[in-house]
């Protein structure tokens, strides 16, 4: 097991009270596999990933639990030690490729930044070659020319590729991808998903993939964690989950998307019922 999240609790405090955004969540991420966290807005899926990176800001607080990454508890590391983990051993790509890149630095400089921080043994020339190599790896044409380009010249798909190049520059053991394809067109989304799978095959990276799109989950996941209001309601291998969803919430979620050729056209779609307390059903952990 590369990473184990055990009884993670992340709470947010306000005058109105405590919001238990992540409430006693446990799951594992095996080496070289893809684990998907699925859920709707407010389910706590992004907060879970930010907690793993220890990027929770005030008024949020990680209240309890363990995040075991290769025998170390990330929650017990000092800030300096944690900085060495981020970007080098675990890195992250975000949803918005348009806003996550710095508009005033070149693409090459931004990829190089990860190397400057984490691979100090490399000299300038070696780093340049490495940046070019990583641009090539994510399928950007003319990487030597693209090194000096600014982000505004690139399309959404290309920017997301650059984000992936930054994340992969130090060959991390784990990649956290928070809705990396939500802002992209379908054909570009397919390319980005293919790219992530390809990189995983080549480098053996584990991926934690956060999404609300069950179609994407079906394509990329080995294991699926379904979150609802801060809790895990169902956990299963992707195959089992789609063949035999057990928790009522998972079922409702699956039936709420029309499937071409399966769902009768213009029929009433099932919905997640706001009046049902899905937490009252037993959790389905497989």
């Amino acid at each position, binding site marked *: 097991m590369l990473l184990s999240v055990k009884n993670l609790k992340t709470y947010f405090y306000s005058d109105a009270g405590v919001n238990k955004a992540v409430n006693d969540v446990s799951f594992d991420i095996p080496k070289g596999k893809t684990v998907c966290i699925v859920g*709707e*807005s407010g389910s706590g899926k992004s907060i879970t990933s930010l907690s793993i990176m220890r990027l929770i800001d005030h008024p949020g607080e990680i209240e309890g639990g363990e995040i075991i990454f290769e025998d170390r508890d990330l929650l017990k590391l000092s800030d300096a030690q944690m900085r060495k983990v981020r970007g080098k051993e675990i890195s992250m790509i975000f949803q918005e490729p348009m806003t996550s890149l710095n508009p005033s630095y070149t693409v090459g400089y931004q990829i190089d930044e990860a190397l400057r921080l984490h691979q100090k043994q490399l000299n300038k020339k070696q780093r340049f070659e490495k940046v070019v190599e990583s641009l090539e790896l994510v399928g950007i044409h003319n990487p030597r020319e693209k090194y000096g380009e600014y982000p505004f010249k690139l399309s*959404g798909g290309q920017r997301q590729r650059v984000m992936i190049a930054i994340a992969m520059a130090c060959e991390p053991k784990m990649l956290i991808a928070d809705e990396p394809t939500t802002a992209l*067109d*379908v*054909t*570009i*989304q*397919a390319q980005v*998903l293919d790219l992530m799978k390809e990189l995983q095959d080549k480098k053996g990276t584990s991926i934690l993939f956060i999404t*609300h*799109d*069950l*179609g*994407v989950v*079906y*394509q990329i996941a080995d294991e699926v964690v379904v979150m609802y209001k801060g809790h895990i309601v169902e956990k299963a291998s992707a195959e089992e989950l*789609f*063949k035999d969803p057990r928790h009522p919430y998972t079922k*409702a*979620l*699956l039936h*709420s*998307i*029309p*499937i*071409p*050729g*399966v*769902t009768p*056209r*213009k029929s*009433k*779609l*099932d*919905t*997640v019922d706001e009046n049902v307390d899905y937490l009252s059903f037993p959790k389905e952990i497989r």
Partner: protein
Amino acid sequence: MSEIIYEIKNLKKYYEINLGLFKKPKIVKAVNDISFNVKKGEVLSLVGESGCGKSTTAKLILKIEEPTGGEILFNGKDITKFKGHELEAYRKKVQIIFQDPYSSLNPRWKVGSIIGEPLKLNTKMKDIEIKERVLYLMEKVGMHPDWYERYPHQFSGGQRQRIGIARALALNPEIIVCDEPVSALDVSIQAQVLNLLLDLQKEFNLTYIFISHDLSVVEHISDRIVVMYFGDIVELKSVDDLFENPEADYTKKLLSAIPTIKD
């Protein structure tokens, strides 16, 4: 079903982009000579990626933008020539539901005023009649009458989209342009809004021009689909036909890219 409402002939919309004082402006052909019909009571979807011209086409139909060339015949009359009363009457018949329910509602207005605004501007109804109509519309879109006095920020995305739908219905339109009405919503909420749109269509005998990039949604709701690519129509077919025998290479690429759950 066969009655044709819109006949769109050789529609063109070009935008000029100034590159500099002494340079020749670049011309972007957002919509490049397209023709299609819209039949009464159908759901016609415009599909394609960002920049393919689907939203521009919708803007031209709504008369928010003027075309560079071509005709849009609405019940046989060219809307590009509409003025005065004729234009006013046309605007009442065609309404729009926007993509982003967060930015398309005025945050300082109460739900009741938002839904009632088209009535206030376009009819001679008295305030009490307007309120009655608004409450009726709220009931139709599944909102509680007590919410009349609330502000948009007190609602979730799905509820806000219902407000937008009620507003679009206020003037009893014939046609509603739905510009990505569910793409900003969570999947389960998306299902609720799609169900609502289909119910309303049946009840009020509406025609939808539905814009989306999500092919699973489009497959579910449409009668016919227009696939657009860089300002051109690459394919126009009934849903069945399109999903069973896609002809254009681009359509095939688009269909193979949908991440779906099969079996």
